[in-house]
């Protein structure tokens, strides 16, 4: 076991000179970095155990699972108190130990504490009727939120003043079977974590006044923990290990995804949500080919999902369909994909003459034409405002996909078969994307994205290859559309508006353009959040718009940054350039 970096020791390391806006403050604090981190951690833990609030919400009873757990169990440690306590203790321990990159790790923990305390504090204040809810009630002082927040901020300040180290790169290689077991455990943990995130704040669908904040608080704690893990370099290491056992990882991940119905999230509601996420994830991967790989901005992409859905709806034997035939589902999927692909090629053909922003506008125009035509029930194919309802569910023999399944004593919720089907579909689409990306065609797309003229000079026939990007992307969306039609049982033009295209694009960008897991991650986030934050439903789109602006401002390369993309998008970020090295850009065609 060895690391590539020298373990930095805070006490012996030369003092870091801070510049920038808060440089003076940081320099003043720097000598006390270690003490500061410990104090911050102690304050966080203390804050977690102080009473936070002693009121009961005006509306709604105290629910079973979603709690700001101070009503009946003032000293019970669970929920956000547990999270703050754990993060605080971890901060103290790491501050005392000699760990590489410890300041960066502790900073991540501190951010987590501060975020959790802030969220709960704000929520208590707003819902509890003013600052009084945090500070005093029943004659007792309840300032847990303030103490924990201060604890978190002190931790962050002290850690930053100690100087943030580069992320260490671990090069451990264990025996293959140890690594396999490790990966298995990690992926299983991820599965449980996903289930926990989905079900936190109570099962969806139930109106619960506490659900939103409990969920956000869990997310904040998780992002704190994850940023600490990522700072320690362990996440990168796990990535390297899973890359080493690529096939194994893919199989285990697939199994984990299929195992979701067996966890706490295995309810009909979550199966439906997960299926919808799957549809948009598959479509987002298709869009990722067009935008992420080939660099052709498409603002009307959801039309292909719509074309696939309407094609499937018409071939499904639904009473309202214009074509009165009922084909088997697999055939319908193929036909939908082909039809969507043909339209993709048509929409893509202007790329021969139009570039950049103008192409974006052309695709937008095609998208709007599609919506308008569908709204007006063009050729009787789309049902117009009446939509095409009552599309029969997919059935194999006598078994309908929306039935529930009973295996022994275990009863799986209805919709679980759709979930399995969409997981397989997404896996297939990811496989297509992954192989294409590394193929000659994929490299040609990337070359066109980087510099079309240069690509052309290198002998790439840019015209057909760009149209091919649209065609293949549209086919993937068409597949997803066929699934969508059968799952939701009703296809209406309303589902394919401009905003949906923007959401898909946002999913691709949020996740990380040109990466395989990026689109899935982005789609999951963008479609889970509204489900969990129903109480903010009025502000949903407003927050979405603001989030788009903030992402572009602070992390344009997305959560999972593609190597090329990162180099291209973050060219003014010296930290990234330094890490990648100037020579890393052209050689990394992989």
């Amino acid at each position, binding site marked *: 076991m060895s690391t590539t970096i020298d373990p930095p020791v805070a006490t012996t390391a030369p003092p870091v000179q801070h510049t920038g806006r808060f440089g003076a403050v940081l320099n003043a604090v720097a000598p006390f970095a270690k003490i500061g981190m410990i104090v911050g951690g102690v304050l966080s833990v203390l804050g977690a155990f102080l009473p936070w609030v002693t009121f009961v919400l005006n509306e709604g009873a105290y629910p079973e699972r979603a709690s700001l757990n101070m009503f009946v169990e003032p000293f019970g440690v669970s929920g956000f108190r547990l999270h703050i306590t754990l993060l605080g203790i971890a901060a103290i321990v790491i501050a005392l130990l000699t760990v590489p990159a410890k300041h960066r790790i502790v900073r991540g923990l501190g951010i987590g504490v501060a975020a959790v305390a802030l969220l709960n504090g704000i929520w208590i204040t707003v819902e509890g009727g003013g600052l009084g809810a945090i500070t005093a009630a029943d004659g007792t002082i309840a300032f847990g939120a303030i103490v924990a927040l201060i604890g978190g901020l002190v931790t962050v300040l002290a850690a930053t003043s100690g100087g943030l180290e580069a992320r260490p790169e671990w090069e451990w290689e264990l025996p293959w079977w140890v690594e396999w077991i490790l990966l298995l455990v990690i992926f299983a943990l991820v599965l449980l974590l996903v289930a926990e995130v989905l079900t936190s704040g109570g099962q969806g669908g139930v109106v619960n006044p506490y659900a939103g904040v409990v969920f956000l608080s869990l997310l904040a704690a998780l992002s704190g923990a994850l940023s600490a893990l990522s700072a320690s370099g362990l996440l990168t290491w796990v990535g390297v290990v899973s890359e080493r056992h690529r096939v194994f990882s893919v199989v285990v991940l697939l199994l984990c995804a299929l195992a979701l119905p067996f966890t706490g999230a295995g309810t009909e509601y979550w199966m439906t949500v997960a299926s919808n996420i799957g549809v948009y994830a598959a479509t987002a991967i298709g869009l990722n080919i067009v935008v992420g790989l080939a660099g052709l*901005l498409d603002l009307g992409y959801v039309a292909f999902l719509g074309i696939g859905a309407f094609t499937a709806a018409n071939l499904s034997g639904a009473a309202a369909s214009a074509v009165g035939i009922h084909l088997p589902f697999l055939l319908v999927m193929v036909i939908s994909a082909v039809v969507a692909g043909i339209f993709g090629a048509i929409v893509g053909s*202007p790329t021969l*003459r*139009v*570039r*950049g*922003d*103008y192409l*974006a*506008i*052309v695709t*937008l*125009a*095609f998208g*709007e*034409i599609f919506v*308008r*035509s569908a*709204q*007006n029930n063009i050729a009787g194919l789309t049902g117009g405002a009446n939509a095409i309802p009552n599309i029969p569910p997919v059935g194999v023999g006598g078994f309908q996909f929306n039935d529930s399944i009973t295996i022994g004593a275990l009863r799986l919720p209805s919709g679980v078969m759709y979930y399995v089907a969409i997981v397989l579909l997404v896996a297939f689409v990811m496989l297509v994307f992954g192989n294409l990306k590394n193929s000659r065609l994929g490299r040609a797309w990337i070359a066109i994205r980087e510099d*079309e003229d240069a690509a052309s000079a290198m002998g790439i026939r840019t015209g057909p290859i760009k149209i091919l990007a649209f065609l293949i992307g549209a086919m993937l969306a068409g597949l997803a559309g066929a699934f969508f039609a059968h799952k939701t049982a009703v296809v209406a033009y309303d589902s394919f508006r*401009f*905003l949906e295209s*923007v959401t898909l*694009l*946002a999913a691709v*960008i949020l996740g990380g353009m040109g990466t395989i897991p990026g689109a899935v991650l982005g789609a999951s986030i963008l479609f889970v959040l509204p489900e969990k934050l129903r109480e903010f439903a*009025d*502000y949903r*789109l*407003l927050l*979405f*718009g*603001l*989030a*788009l*602006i903030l*992402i*572009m*401002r602070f992390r*344009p390369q997305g959560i999972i940054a593609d190597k090329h993309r990162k180099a*291209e*998008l973050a*060219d*003014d970020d010296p930290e990234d350039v330094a890490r990648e090295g100037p020579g890393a850009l052209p050689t990394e065609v992989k």
Partner: protein
Amino acid sequence: MSTFLSQIANGLMFGSLIALIAIGYTMVYGIITLINFAHGEIFMVGAYGGLATLTYWVPTAVVAQWYFALPIALVAGALVAMLVAIAMERFAYRPLRNAPRLAPLITALGVSVALQEAVRVFYPGATAAIPFPPLFLDGAFVIPIGDGVVIRYTGVLLIVVSLALAFALERFVERTRLGRAMRATSQDRDVARLMGIDPDRVIVLTFAIGGALAGVAGVLYGSYLNNINIDMGFQNGIFAFTAAVLGGIGNIRGAVVGGLVIGLVRALGGQYLPGGTAYDYVWIFVVLIIVLVFRPQGFFGESERVRA
């Protein structure tokens, strides 16, 4: 014949409105090559700003007189829209000035969604269409051809104000020092900086002018259709962008001509082409695609500039 003339008149009215919005698109694109998707929302915000002023801040006795209400609403709408446009430039676009091209475009989409939703959430009653008071003489000319061609006074006001503002703006850009600074910045920002021009100021000015014109357009739109809704920004914004492209982007006169063409296509296409008014928007987009594919520099575009 009278139907045809009526549609021509309708088309010109709608078109001059689109032209006012298109000027903002074309100027911003000319200077920072950004498709400012949020510009349509500025138009919408202007309409709501004008309405809010009339509803909440001006005594009803004053609103009742059109010669008070009209200028107040126009100025208020223009001011609100201008301030929002300046804030948008400052906080959303300026930090991305040197970012890759995709970033500001996505940001523009984000600003568009956020503005629309902000109005919907925070303006009282904005979840549905809101009635807008008539701001001009209520009545119409009737030209005695065939069954009579009816031309509303409000429509005439629309055309006159739009063309006057466009004319004034073109004079401003052609004849004044600031206008020259704008043209210089649009040609080459770095060289303009060497010549002592502060590009940031010029860019803010561009957004301010475009915003003010869009605000005026918003108020006129409300007064013409007698109700406004939060969707008006997006649709008309896309039309206006189409108009800007038609006329040749970066060209004020082109934007006006493009706007009028869009108006005519919509009115005549809705009347005479198959599908009727249900498909009138489709024809506009078809024209857009054809122009972009076959003459991307538009009617008045100079040489084709390579835009990566």
